[in-house]
């Protein structure tokens, strides 16, 4: 059984998966693809439901026995279960519930906001031929919106508010803690993944948040994280964005 990881720049979901891969010591072939040019949709498994319809939007794909796996938090759980390296989830069921709930809320509220702000500041477009290959109608619509320019004032304001809320939550959570869940976990990777690129775009949200700044530095200092970041092909991987999860349709 061999594993191949198709990943983009080490930012957002690709960051989580690459760092989790190195943290857990799982052996895999790695293929760098340009998620921001829609290259995921060229993969042989692109039309498989679990790839085409991933709620995460443009993220990495792990292929095992021709089956494509998506959604970075769940890939990280998988790597944690098959890996022989360090553990990325607490053992205690309650602590695990806390971690999964943390990630779920981050994916639902913070990730769409970060992707919107990131793509608004660093616009990317895909050509018509690639657009036609995108299996999910709503993901295609997010690409089309991105091509038109993401500048809706209400969306920008709402996204900035959600990033600021996430930073506040992290700052509070880190009171007396080195890592978000006490022990280092997927929650640290996934939170860093979506917020690293916000430091430059929304410096005010990070002002006077010393615990958050120290925590981000601690994340970067981990050898597995440093290795993931070293795979960047651009000078600033945290400026690399593609359409992420959609903004909650229920409001």
């Amino acid at each position, binding site marked *: 059984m061999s594993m191949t990881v198709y990943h983009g720049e080490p930012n957002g979901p690709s960051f989580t998966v690459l760092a989790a891969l190195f943290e857990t010591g799982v052996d895999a072939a790695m293929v760098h693809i340009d998620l921001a040019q829609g290259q995921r949709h060229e993969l042989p498994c692109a039309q498989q*439901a679990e790839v085409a*319809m991933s709620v995460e939007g443009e993220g990495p794909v792990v292929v095992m026995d021709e089956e494509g796996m998506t959604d970075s938090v769940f890939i990280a759980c*998988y790597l944690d279960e098959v890996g022989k390296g360090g553990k990325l989830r607490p053992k205690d069921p309650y602590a*695990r519930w806390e971690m999964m709930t943390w990630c779920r809320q981050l994916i639902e509220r913070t990730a769409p906001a970060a992707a919107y702000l990131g793509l608004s500041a660093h616009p990317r477009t895909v050509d018509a031929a690639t657009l036609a290959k995108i299996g999910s109608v709503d993901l295609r619509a997010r690409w089309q919106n991105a091509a038109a320019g993401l500048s809706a004032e209400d969306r920008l304001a709402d996204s900035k508010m959600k990033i600021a809320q996430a930073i506040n939550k992290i700052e509070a959570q880190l009171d007396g803690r080195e890592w978000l869940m006490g022990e280092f976990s997927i929650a640290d990777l996934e939170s860093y993944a979506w917020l690293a690129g916000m430091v430059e775009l929304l410096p005010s949200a990070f002002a006077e948040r010393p615990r958050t700044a120290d925590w981000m530095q601690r994340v970067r200092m981990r050898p597995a994280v440093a290795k993931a970041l070293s795979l960047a092909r651009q000078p600033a991987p945290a400026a690399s964005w593609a359409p992420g999860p959609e903004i*909650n349709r229920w*409001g």
Partner: protein
Amino acid sequence: MSDVTLYHWEPNANSGKPMLALMEKGVAFDSHYLDLLNFDQHKPDYLAVNPQGTIPAMRHGSRVLTESTAIMEYVDEAFAGPPLMPQDPRDRWRVRWWMKFMDQWLGPSFSMIGWNVFVGPAVRSKDPEELKTAVERIPLPERRTAWRKAIYGLFSEEELKESQRRVAVGIRMLEEALGRREWLASDRFSLADINGFNLGYALPLSQPKLSNDEMTPNILRWLRAIYARPMTKACWAMGRTPMVKRVAILEQQYIGKEPVT
């Protein structure tokens, strides 16, 4: 008296997930029914349990847990009883993928339609002032928006159309997945099936043109197989509203293409 208390509404959507998971696991719990249509979930008694005012919530000892799918994973890990997650890590990944897909993509579309046709009309006849106060008491801004839309019938044609499109796509995806495997995410009954049943138990009634024995035989086989489980029957018997009684449609041997009455 159990050390587990579940605060829930009907065996339907989010509330039904931990209800059925606890029952399949064989965990005794005290049932605390909250009437969603009476806004019980936004009253001080419950806000003391879950300040966000979302249903369900589960108390285990001195701890309170929220988020239905995460509660289910907790139930599976924290208690003895038959495992509700497969052993194989890739199967486990698939269970989680499908639950997220249903929770965040397909479920909200079903829910929007359900709130538009069932929840909204069910509360609309209440005193307008009482409704206004009830909405203002909702802690989460997103839930306030959703309730306003349901109560005053403010869902736009465009968003309802998009929800209906997603329901159709989701039904096709479920049918395809269940054509490949006996259960939704692996070859054994799991949390993904509990999650999916809560979403789709009344599919042949709510979407008769898209889901029936002719068009989606695998979905119908799957729904009937889950309904045949003693715990599912016991769980749905806890329902009090006509909405939940619709599960009886699954007792029919064959549901053809013609809309059922």
